[in-house]
């Protein structure tokens, strides 16, 4: 399995988060290669195994193009994730793509139309199908520019999965993509924590400072 994350220099704080992400992967899955997907000029995060570069483009276009360019078993993560346990056994099962649901009972409910159009969150995705991401990329290429520059790939991912043309597995979001509501959060220990949204970035920074102090 490989771990990959998308990060360009336009997201400066992302370098701080990605550093913590990489350290978390090293801690729980030593030997698993970590890759950065980026444009032609953005710096690489220190300590990663490989940097994949493609010409700059809208966020969702470039990210899905990267995901479509790699073969094998991949865990694609947002930079604001922390991996807390080994997840390689997810690939013991057969699927093209494994996504997480939004089973987050501790979080205030999201707008129903939002969750209906995007029932899965693309911050954590297990994939062994470049072809699936080619499809996502082609759908995003037809979307309005604002979608291409934001979460068009997540929207396209959900819609392509809904066609039933790819084998996919749904993972429990409270386990594989847990959005904490505080730092530190309660004793419950999810596999992957996702500090999505502005408020949770404060929790992530708090955690980074705390763990660096202990290191």
């Amino acid at each position, binding site marked *: 399995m490989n771990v990959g994350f998308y990060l360009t220099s336009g997201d400066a704080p992302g370098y701080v988060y990605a550093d913590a992400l990489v350290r978390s992967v090293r801690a729980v899955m030593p030997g698993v290669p970590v890759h950065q997907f980026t444009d032609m000029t953005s710096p690489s995060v220190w300590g990663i195994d490989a940097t994949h570069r493609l010409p700059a483009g809208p966020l969702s276009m470039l990210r899905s193009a990267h995901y479509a360019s790699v073969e094998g078993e991949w865990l694609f993560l947002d930079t604001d994730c922390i991996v807390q346990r080994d997840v390689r056994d997810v690939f013991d099962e057969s699927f093209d793509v494994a996504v997480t649901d939004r089973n987050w009972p501790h979080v205030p409910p999201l707008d129903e139309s939002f969750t209906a159009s995007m029932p899965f969150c693309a911050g954590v995705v297990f994939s062994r199908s470049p072809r699936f991401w080619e*499809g996502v990329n082609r*759908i995003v290429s037809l979307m309005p520019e604002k979608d291409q520059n934001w979460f068009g790939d997540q929207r396209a991912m959900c819609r392509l999965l809904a066609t*039933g043309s790819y084998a996919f597995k749904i993972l429990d979001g409270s386990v594989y993509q847990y959005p904490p509501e505080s730092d530190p959060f309660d004793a419950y220990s999810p596999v992957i924590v996702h500090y999505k949204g502005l408020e949770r970035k404060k929790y992530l920074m708090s955690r980074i400072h705390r763990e660096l102090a202990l290191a």
Partner: protein
Amino acid sequence: MKVPLSVYIGYDSRQPIAHAVAAESVAVHATRPVPITSLRLNQLPITRRGLTEFTYSRYLVPYLSGFTGYSLYLDSDTLCRADVLDLLPYPIAYPETAVFVVPHKLSFERPSVMLFNNAKCRMLTPDYVQDSRNGLANLSWTPDIGSIPPAWNHLVGYDLPNPAAKIVHFTKGIPVWPETKDSEFSAEWWAVANRLGSSVSFQELMGKSVHVQKVIQ
């Protein structure tokens, strides 16, 4: 693995070769199995017909698809040169759009290739399609019409020659007549038609079959 696109091709009993070539060309270029259905008027719940037997039956495609998934309709006088599954990103990117066509200036040509988002076309019931008061070709039955690139309905004899055409539409007639034999893509159409009528030798195909002795006797 489910293929979320089905293909329907108009059928006119006066010219079965047209349908056969169109269907074969779709199947040959598809990268995954795609169901292909003939629109034969005598099998359908309407009797309404126009210049061809499929003038109106094409609008039954969403109904015949159970108003689910995506369906591509083609006139019989077409030749497909690309993977029809390449059209799928359009309805997925624009899920509120009911039907996608090439927006030709010749508006009556637009319905000759239609990509339906079937769930958005529930108004196209057999009763509605049968009713002669409903003009269907102007697509006025929906306000949600999307566009696909011109290569997906290349009008031979009207559009400028395009070697990259994906669906060739011999709207002035398939190249079986002296009047149309020199049309753009005529040779490609004939290559498919000839292949449909061809076979390897008896020995090559049946030589190792259990039936050989019976045939020789």
